């Protein structure tokens, strides 16, 4: 098992390094290079001549080390990242890490809240729709969850904010109270965003659990459980659910990625001062040290959750624990999992890909 974990850790490190190269590289997409961009910004307030601007570019290039070879620049940047220096925001002149620290709490509350809601609602409903898959009620619930996935989440968020906030006045449509203001006021402002954000992930959990549970319920060992005369509660929870819950564990990193994207839109609509609004403002201001830091953070969070999910599998799956199978062999990974982009929004095709799901669920 130790070698499995070591190999998995190595994969994470390599993936993160690839991410860092991408994130470091994109500032070179700016026409004229990074220094020209800073000068353009500085130029806005002053009246600089062409020659002065050119000298400014030179000076800034030297100051930010842009004259050095690109691998030296990359190494310096990576070194800074490891020491917690993500640069300073062009706009507010504050260190990026400080801004991230200030903005983290509301976003994490949203993401963790929505993740909990989607698991607490999705797992029972996923089980229920699998058990009642031949009845009208099971099919109806499944169809509703299918609809939830294909509806754009930013539209749902808008409608929720409008109906429950603007029209009914049950919750504030915009605004945010930090946790330090007390749990009551905080929840009053956060409950609608959390519920809104959890709609799509809940549907994902329902559909994935339904899928794996249906397969497990048809399996010979569940038939054996029935034949042994076990009470239905024990069959469903002890025999079936335990074996069906694996895909949900591998789904969690995907949900976190989806929620990270979703918070951008939900925070924008409900006007919550989190990481999502931070990135929107940074993009509006073309403040790329800020966006660079935020994109890196998102990548690290998803990579960490991916790692945690795989480690959880290697602990709870006896085939991996005893070293007789690799993580990628146990069939808990959905083929669609990595191959689905744009998960930040409604990934319409995700669960509808029966071929991909079938080949991976053993």
């Amino acid at each position, binding site marked *: 098992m130790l070698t499995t974990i070591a190999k998995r850790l190595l994969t994470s490190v390599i993936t993160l390094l690839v991410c860092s190269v991408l994130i470091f590289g994109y500032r070179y997409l700016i026409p004229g290079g990074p220094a020209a961009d800073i000068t353009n910004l500085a130029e806005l307030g002053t009246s600089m001549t062409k020659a002065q601007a050119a000298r400014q570019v030179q000076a800034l290039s030297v100051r930010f080390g842009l004259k050095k070879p690109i691998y030296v620049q990359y190494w310096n940047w990576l070194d800074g990242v490891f020491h917690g220096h993500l640069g300073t925001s062009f706009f507010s002149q504050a260190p990026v890490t400080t801004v991230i620290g200030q903005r983290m709490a509301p976003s994490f509350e949203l993401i963790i809240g929505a993740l909990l809601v989607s698991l607490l609602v999705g797992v029972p409903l996923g089980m229920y729709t699998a058990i009642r898959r031949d009845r009208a009620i099971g099919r109806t619930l499944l169809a509703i969850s299918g609809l939830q996935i294909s509806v*754009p989440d930013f539209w749902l968020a808008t409608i929720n904010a409008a109906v429950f906030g603007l029209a009914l006045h049950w919750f504030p449509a915009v605004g945010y109270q930090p946790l330090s203001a007390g749990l009551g006021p905080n929840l009053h402002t956060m409950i609608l965003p959390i519920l809104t954000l959890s709609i799509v992930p809940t549907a994902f959990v329902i559909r994935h659990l339904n899928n794996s549970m249906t397969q497990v319920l048809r399996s010979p060992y569940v038939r054996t459980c029935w034949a042994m005369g076990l009470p239905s509660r024990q069959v469903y929870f002890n025999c079936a659910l335990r074996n069906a819950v694996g895909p949900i564990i591998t789904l969690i990193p995907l949900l976190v990625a989806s929620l*990270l994207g979703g918070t951008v839109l939900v925070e924008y609509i409900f006007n919550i001062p989190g990481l999502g609004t931070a990135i929107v403002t940074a993009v509006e201001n073309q403040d790329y040290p800020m*966006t660079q830091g935020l994109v890196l953070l998102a990548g690290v969070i998803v990579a960490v959750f991916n790692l945690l999910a795989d480690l959880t599998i290697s602990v709870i799956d006896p085939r991996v624990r005893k070293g007789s199978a690799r993580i990628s062999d146990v069939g808990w990974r959905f083929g669609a999992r990595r191959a689905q*982009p744009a998960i930040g929004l409604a990934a319409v095709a995700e669960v509808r890909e029966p071929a991909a799901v079938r080949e991976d669920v053993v």
Partner: protein
Amino acid sequence: MSGMAAVGDAPDTSGGLDIPDARRHRRARPGSPDGSEETGWRRWRSAWSSISVASRIGLVITIVFVLAAILAPVLPLQDPLAQRLNATNGGPSLHHFFGTDYLGRDVFSRIVYGTRSSYEGVVVGLAVTMIIGIPWGLVAGFGGTVLDEVLMRAADGLLSFPAIVLALGFISVLGPSLYHAMIAIGVVAAPAVARLLRSTVLPIRRAEYVLVSGALGASRLRIVLRHVLPNAMGPVLVQGFSLGSIFLIVGAALSFLGFGVQPPAPSWGADLVNAYQYFVVNPFGTVVPGLIITIAAWSISAVGDGVRELVLLN
């Protein structure tokens, strides 16, 4: 006089054969000796009858939307930019099917013109994805082990980001516009195509017809382009439709945030956020653009389901 007639008629080279039949025989594929292989119209009809009802509905809706996008300037619509400040936030009426927005602009006309940017965005995004993703997947699947590993780790790296966050990163550098937004989305989605293509190429690589053409001395490039790629494109085509429907939604979301289509140009996403500000006065305005986005995205993915059925049939 007979010479004059021959100028207009095709020279008789059939040697007494009935030309139309001869042509049909020539076009017939091996395996259908009577030459009754389905072609043209009949082929479309049989394709139509073998896909599900949902896919048919999706196909019709998609065709209608694409036609609307192409024909918008010649359709008898009101000017989507003309403001009527005495008729703002109006409900649906005979004159304005979907009402008017906060500047008194006709929402129906804006929705119809919005199809242009929406589908344009999908096409741009898909083009970028395919141009990057197909070579990526082919090289990974057909290149050496080390190259494969490097390219797939890079794909993992790119795919582990939430797409919209990475797209925002690109836009912050390139500046906000529909094309930049869709290029960014296309780049973000490319590794998904690469992964899929690689997994389809791997078994084909060992197929007998590939080995045979290698033994006959065909170059690697020729094998990949003539034999591997055409046989591996089916799944990629199907995925293209799912990606198309996702691109439509993501494009609308980026316009919604203000980074896609720039005002005052009509766009579904930006119109939705504007209508939201006036929800209490005119709730209908918020419902329409979202519903249209949903229908359009669903239709594209329904067409994709139909294409998958056809790919599986063949």
